[in-house]
C-alpha cells in the first residue's frame, strides 16, 4: 500500500508494455545467440528455434585465431584510450565553462557541440589523409583521436552539467583554506562530480565502441577493430554464419558489462538532461 503515494503507471497492464518492448529488443539478439551455438549446416539447413546440436566450435574459432581475438584487443585499446583522452581533456574545459565567463565562451561551447553534428562520413576521407601525413594510420591512437571528434564535445557537455550542480562556494572555501587549483581540483572537486565522470566515461566508451566507419577507415591490419574484421569475414570466408554470429555476440558482451556496472549512474546522468 505504500506505493499509493508513488506515481502509478497508467492502467494495470503497464508491465505488459515494458515486457513486450523488451521482448522485441531481445528477440533479434536471441536469434544471434541461437545461431552462434549452431553448426553452419544446421543454420542453413534446418530451421530451428534453438540449437539442436549445440556446439562451441564458433567460439573456439574466435578464441584460437589471432586475427579474430586481436580485433577485440584492438577495439578495447582504442576505446579505452579514447575514453581517457576525452575525459581528461574535457575536465578542465568543462570546469572553465561552468565557472567562468571568458572571451568567446558561448561561441566556443556552441561550436564544440556542432562537432557532434558532423557526419562521420564527411570526415572519413580527410581523416585518412591527415593521419597518413602524420604516419598514424593503422595505430590505436589514430582511432582514439578521431573519436575525440564527437566524444570530447559530449564529455564537455555532460561534465559541465554536473559541475554546474556543485555550488561555487565549495571552490571559494577551498581556496580560502589554501588549496592550490590543481590540488583542489583533484582532491575536492573530482570526488564531488564522480558520478558525472562515470556518466561521461560511459558515453565516451559507448560511442567509441559502436562507431565503425572511422575506425575501419583509419586501420588496415595492426589496429583493426573487431567489428571491421567481422565485415571482412562475411565477404571473404563464404558466409561462415556461425562464426559471424559468435563474433557478434562477443561484441555485445563488453557493452552489456559496462551498462550493468553503471546502471544507477545512467539514470542520474539522463536526469540532468545531458547526453
Amino acid at each position, binding site marked *: 500500500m505504500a*506505493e499509493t*503515494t*508513488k*506515481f502509478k*503507471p*497508467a492502467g494495470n497492464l*503497464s508491465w505488459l*508494455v*515494458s515486457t513486450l*518492448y*523488451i521482448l522485441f*529488443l*531481445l*528477440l*533479434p*539478439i536471441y*536469434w*544471434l545467440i541461437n545461431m552462434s551455438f549452431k553448426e553452419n549446416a544446421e543454420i542453413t539447413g534446418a*530451421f530451428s528455434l534453438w540449437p539442436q546440436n549445440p556446439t562451441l566450435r564458433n567460439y573456439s574459432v574466435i578464441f584460437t585465431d589471432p586475427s579474430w581475438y586481436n580485433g577485440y584487443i584492438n577495439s578495447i585499446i582504442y576505446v579505452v584510450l579514447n575514453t581517457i583522452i576525452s575525459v581528461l*581533456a*574535457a575536465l*578542465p*574545459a568543462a570546469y*572553465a565553462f561552468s*565557472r*567562468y*565567463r*571568458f572571451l568567446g565562451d558561448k561561441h566556443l561551447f556552441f561550436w564544440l557541440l556542432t*562537432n557532434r*553534428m*558532423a*557526419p*562521420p*562520413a*564527411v*570526415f572519413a*576521407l*580527410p*581523416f585518412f589523409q591527415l593521419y597518413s601525413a602524420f604516419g598514424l594510420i593503422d595505430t590505436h591512437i589514430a582511432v582514439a583521436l578521431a573519436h*575525440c571528434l564527437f566524444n570530447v*564535445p559530449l564529455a*564537455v557537455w555532460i561534465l559541465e552539467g554536473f559541475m*554546474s550542480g556543485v555550488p*561555487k562556494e565549495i571552490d571559494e572555501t577551498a581556496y580560502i583554506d589554501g588549496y592550490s587549483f590543481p590540488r583542489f581540483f583533484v582532491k575536492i572537486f573530482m570526488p564531488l562530480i564522480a558520478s558525472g565522470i562515470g556518466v561521461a566515461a560511459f558515453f565516451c566508451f559507448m560511442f567509441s*565502441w559502436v562507431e*565503425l566507419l572511422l575506425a575501419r577507415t583509419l586501420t588496415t591490419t595492426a589496429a583493426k577493430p573487431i*567489428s571491421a574484421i*567481422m565485415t571482412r569475414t562475411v565477404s571473404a570466408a563464404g558466409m561462415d554464419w556461425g562464426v559471424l554470429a559468435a563474433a*557478434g555476440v562477443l*561484441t555485445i558482451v563488453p*557493452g*552489456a558489462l559496462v*551498462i550493468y556496472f553503471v*546502471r544507477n549512474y*545512467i539514470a542520474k546522468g*539522463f*536526469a540532468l*538532461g*545531458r*547526453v
Partner: protein
Amino acid sequence: MQKTWNNKAWFLVLPVLVLVAFSAVIPLMTVVNYSVQDTFGNNEFFWAGTDWFLEILHSDRFWEALQRNLFFSFVILALQIPLGIFIALNMPKSGIGVPVCLVLMALPLLIPWNVVGTIWQVFGRVDIGLLGYTLRALGVDYNYVRDPLDAWITIIVMDVWHWTSLVVLLCYAGLVSIPDAYYQAAKIDGASRWSVFRYIQLPKMKRVLLIAVLLRFMDSFMIYTEPFVVTGGGPGNSTTFLSIDLVKMAVGQFDLGPAAAMSIIYFLIILLLSWIFYTVMTSSDANG
C-alpha cells in the same frame, strides 16, 4: 550561477581546443580545400571555384538521397518519440524492475552499429532468419533484398529497435525527476490521467524531449553503417542515403572534389535543421 569574468579560463579549454582542432578543424579545412579544387592526380590541383557545389546541387542523385534522408528522419522521429514516451510512462518506477528494464533496454545502444546491421540482416533473411522465415511461413511475401518497400520497413524497424531505448531512457529520467507532490496535487485537484500527462509529465519532460529529438534527428540523418550492412544501399538505390552515397563517392570512386562539396552541403543541412528544431522547440518557452 554567477560566473566570474576570467580570460585565463582559455588555458583550461586549451587541451580540448588542440584536440578538436586536430580532429575537426584540420580535416574540415581539407574538405573545404578539396571542394573548390579539381585534380587529375599527380598531386596537381586546379582552382574549381563553386563548380563542384553546382554539380552536386544539380545532380538528381543528391536530391534523391536527400529526400530519402529527410523522409527517413521524419518517419524515425514520428515513430520513436511517441513510442519512447509511451514506454517510459509505463516503465516501473521502483523495485527490481527498474534496473532490469534499464539494463535490458540500453542493450541495443551498446552494440556496434555494423553488428546491429548484421543482426537484422540475419534476422530478416527468409532462409535463416527468424523474422523473414516466420513472415514467409505466414504467407507474407517479404524479401528485403529484392523489394524496396520491404527494405525500407526492415531498416526502419531496425532503427526503432536500435534507438527507441535512448528516447525511453531520456523520458524516463525526466519522469522520475518529478516530485511525488505533483501527482498527489493532481489527484487532489481531480485531474484525469490525460491532464496529468498534459500538464505535469509533458512539461517536465520538455527538456529531455528536446535533447531526444535533436539527437535522434542528427543521428538518423547521419545514418550510414546499419543500412549499409543490411542493404548496401539497395535494392537499386532505394536505401542509398546521403552518407552512403558520400562514402561511395569519396572512398569508392575517389571523386574528391564532388565528395568534399557534398560533405559541406550535408553538414550545413544538418546544422540548419538542428538549429530550426532547437529554435522551434525552445521558442514556446520564451513566449510564455
